[in-house]
């Protein structure tokens, strides 16, 4: 059977999700395919910062302007994913004090609100900060949960008549008479192949966009740049902290949900699947963190992971942070003589909606559709509370819910306060619940296993609940538990010293000694481990 649509969007990150929604809202029939789960790529592996644009104001004002515009839009359309933490740019003793004035001017030129406040006032608000900061500027940064954004986008796409197929990887693009007319997708678990016919294909595969374009014989050079981040076990700042200096390693600290994330490094890699974290990267994050928050390297680091920036330069010149962070929408008809295919590449999470809009503009022009973009005003639904208007994100919300409840809803994940009914609900909505990746998918929906114990207690419980409610059989439950344990382990392993090490030994004790997990499921297949993490 062949599926048919107007536009096939490849890539379940923010850009692909945004493009699919934009097109659906313009009346086109869309199918979104993603090789793993939504946000499995770079969108799910970022630090959680919704940029004000300040970071780019000096060197890349175009990106900066895009950021501040989109920042204002996203706060309106997806408040449930955004916590208005605000942001500080701080001048530490390690920063060139002459940079700040020029930076302020550059921000103002980009229409970014900047307000200087005294270090004393800042320290009263954020007592953990380095007391030797000399200047502080407040900007409208925010913390943004990309899992929530994608869940909202997916719900909206489906509401508008579109289709979302996760765990469907593209194996081939079909061309007829020099025009891309569809793709073959393979179900990651069953291996079943299916053809999707489309009037137009959008390549929104991010760091993997070059590989997709190559399937149609087009050369798109994406320079993957790996950025490593470390989540510290609790949020010791409540405002986003940026160093006021030219962008560098480990100079952003983001309170996101219950943790504080520091990032990032910037390492050119040859393969976008290369997301291993190296010891020096962790050490760099700790050393840089120490400059922002004294004592940083002595508190508990929870988890390290890396995302791969899909940097794009048509002229192949700049690398890493030298590359511009704007984006490009490539019309392969004019560029390469291949019609029916558009590629969107570059950019950053904050500007996903704009990237999607520009891409949709191109697609509509080619398909002769005349309707205009609505996503700047279209309020995204909150799948967790479909009947209500979306509320701003507040970390205390889950605690409040439990307090407000009159009856028992077992807490499966004690660190992130995930209840049994939330888990059952999310499992019901997941079409791939028998897959070994089931628990990792549920993690993205619910933050299951993302707290200090990293799944030590909730992994067995979640597997048990899936089995008890009939979603999976015992063998599937075992595989899912084993897979989740191994995935959590991957992010813990670079950080095993001190209290994290003790936690890891307790977790190992639970799975090996108490449960005998190792005897029940074969050791993880390394190939499977390449995907999702974060």
């Amino acid at each position: 059977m062949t599926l048919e649509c107007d536009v096939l969007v490849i890539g379940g990150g923010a850009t692909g999700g945004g493009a699919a929604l934009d097109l659906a809202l313009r009346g086109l029939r869309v199918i979104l395919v993603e090789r793993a789960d939504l946000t499995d790529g770079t969108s799910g592996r970022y630090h959680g910062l919704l940029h004000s644009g300040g970071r780019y104001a000096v060197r890349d004002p175009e990106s900066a302007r895009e950021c501040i515009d989109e920042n204002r839009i996203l706060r309106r359309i997806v408040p449930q994913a955004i916590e208005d933490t605000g942001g500080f740019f701080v001048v530490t003793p390690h920063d060139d004090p002459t940079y700040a004035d020029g930076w302020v001017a550059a921000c103002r030129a980009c229409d970014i609100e900047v307000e200087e406040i005294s270090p004393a006032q800042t320290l009263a608000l954020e007592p953990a900060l380095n007391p030797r900061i000399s200047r502080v500027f407040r900007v409208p940064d925010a913390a943004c949960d990309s899992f929530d954004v994608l869940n909202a986008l997916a719900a909206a796409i489906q509401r508008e008549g579109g289709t979302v197929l996760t765990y469907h990887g593209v194996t081939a693009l079909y061309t007829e008479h020099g025009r891309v007319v569809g793709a073959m997708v393979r179900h990651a678990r069953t291996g079943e192949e299916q053809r999707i016919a489309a009037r137009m294909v959008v390549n929104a595969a991010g760091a993997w966009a070059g590989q997709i374009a190559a399937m149609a014989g087009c050369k798109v050079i994406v320079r993957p740049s790996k950025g490593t981040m470390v989540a510290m076990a609790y949020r010791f700042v409540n405002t986003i902290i940026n160093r006021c200096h030219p962008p560098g390693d480990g100079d952003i600290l983001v309170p996101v949900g219950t943790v504080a994330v520091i990032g990032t490094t910037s390492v050119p890699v040859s393969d976008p699947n290369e997301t291993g974290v190296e010891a020096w990267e962790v050490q760099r994050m700790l050393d840089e963190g120490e400059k922002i928050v004294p004592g940083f390297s002595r508190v508990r680091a929870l988890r390290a992971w890396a995302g791969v920036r899909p940097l794009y330069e048509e002229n192949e010149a700049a690398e890493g942070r030298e590359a511009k962070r704007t984006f490009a929408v490539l019309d392969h008809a004019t560029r390469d003589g291949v019609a029916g295919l558009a590629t969107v590449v570059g950019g950053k999470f904050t500007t996903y909606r704009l990237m999607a809009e520009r891409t949709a503009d191109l697609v509509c022009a080619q398909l002769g559709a005349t309707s205009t973009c609505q996503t700047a005003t279209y309020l995204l639904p909150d799948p967790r509370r479909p009947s209500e208007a979306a509320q701003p994100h507040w970390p205390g919300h889950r605690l409040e819910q439990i307090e407000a409840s009159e009856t028992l809803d077992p807490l499966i994940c004690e660190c992130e306060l995930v209840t049994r009914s939330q888990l059952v609900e999310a499992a019901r909505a997941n079409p791939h619940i028998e897959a070994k990746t089931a628990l990792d998918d549920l993690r993205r929906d619910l933050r299951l296993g993302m707290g200090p114990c990293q799944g030590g207690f909730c992994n067995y419980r979640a597997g048990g609940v899936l089995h008890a409610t009939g979603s999976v059989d015992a063998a599937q439950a075992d595989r899912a538990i084993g897979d989740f344990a191994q995935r959590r382990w991957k992010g813990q392993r670079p950080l095993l010293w001190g209290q994290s090490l003790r936690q890891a030994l307790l977790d190992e004790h639970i799975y090996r000694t108490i449960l005998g997990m190792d005897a029940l499921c074969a050791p993880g297949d390394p190939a499977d481990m390449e995907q999702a993490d974060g």
Partner: protein
Amino acid sequence: MSETYTPILLEDIRRTADLCVKCNICTTACPVAAVTDLFPGPKFVGPQAQRFRDPEMPSPDDSLDYCSGCGVCTQVCPHDVKVMEINIAAKAELRERQLEENKLDPHLWRNWLLGHNEALGELGGWFAPISNLVMGIPLTRTLMEVTLGIDRHAPFPKFHFTKFRSWFFGAHQKEKAPTPPGAPKVAYFYGCATNNYEPEVGRAIVAVLEHNGFEVVLPEQNCCGLPMQSNGDFDGARRYANANLRTLAPYAAEGIPIVLGGTSCAMELKADYQHLLGIHTEEARLVAENTYDISEFLWMQHEAGRLRTDFARTEAYLPYHTSCHQKLHRIGRPALELLSLVPGLRAEEMGFDCCGITGTYGYKHEKYDIAYAVGEPLFERLKASGAEMALCDNETCRWNIANQSGLRVVHTMQILARAYGLSEHGL
């Protein structure tokens, strides 16, 4: 970074939530969680909930209110999480929200009243016979329960007409032996309970210290602030704390030890002023460093070879309850060590974590049954022990245990005073 700077990150007691590995050992040891469904346990309201608390927003977790503050969680935690301290700090925030939301909640007034028991004691003492009579009428207690939520069965000690302080500066100055020249001084912080209700404990402590050649001095003092602190009124507790620090610091600065008989009040001076109330001053540090539990102090004297051991043979078996807050001092069991010096005396630790009352917790009507259930195994054990008298070094625990077990319960110093032959001051 300068050498003396301690990063806030490493200083803040709430940071210790970071050390939790979710083993729930604290929950298994929590005496309150063991007896009620209303309290989810210290790990739940402590290191777990702490991650979701936002300094900008009121803490949304009312179940925290059922924490009694006994601190068993902190003691058993093998990972150095200051569970109880995290909870008490969060409780203060909870109270602020309650105050904002509903000033007329009778429990708030009750908690205010229990927090101000110093004033209560003062007042009651002026009219001691009448106060005791009124408090002795069942109707009074019923009314208090209905209007204020103070449980009618909770132990109310008798007010004393002659306060300890008046005795010390009055009768005692006349009758005591002259102070030997060059006698080392000890500053005695007696606390509200000794002053108003149990002056005999204060007299025993003075007698034991003077028998060992110390000159006892009484600094100006007021309530230590603990009742307010545990009822979430940190501002009120800080006012008391600062007043005490002002009068005690000069003694500490001279190296004069400050001793206390009450183990909970002592924790205030030793640690809570700094770590819970956040008073990080030189005065607070000096006072803390020079403050000792009376048994701790005397055992140190013994270890230095300075304690008199002219104890009379005392054939007795005395069950001993270590109060929950005493364990937080991290001083071991100096009272048991001292008692072991008395020939013929056998004191046995009962090994129960808490008697249930934890300061003012068990006075509250909605918590009375919980507090009773917490202490019940101890009461039963004491009743079965065959002893007529038991020992406990903290006042509300003493009253509670006496009330529930029917045994007479006294302070270790009362026994030592008697063994020294100074019984006119003690028992």
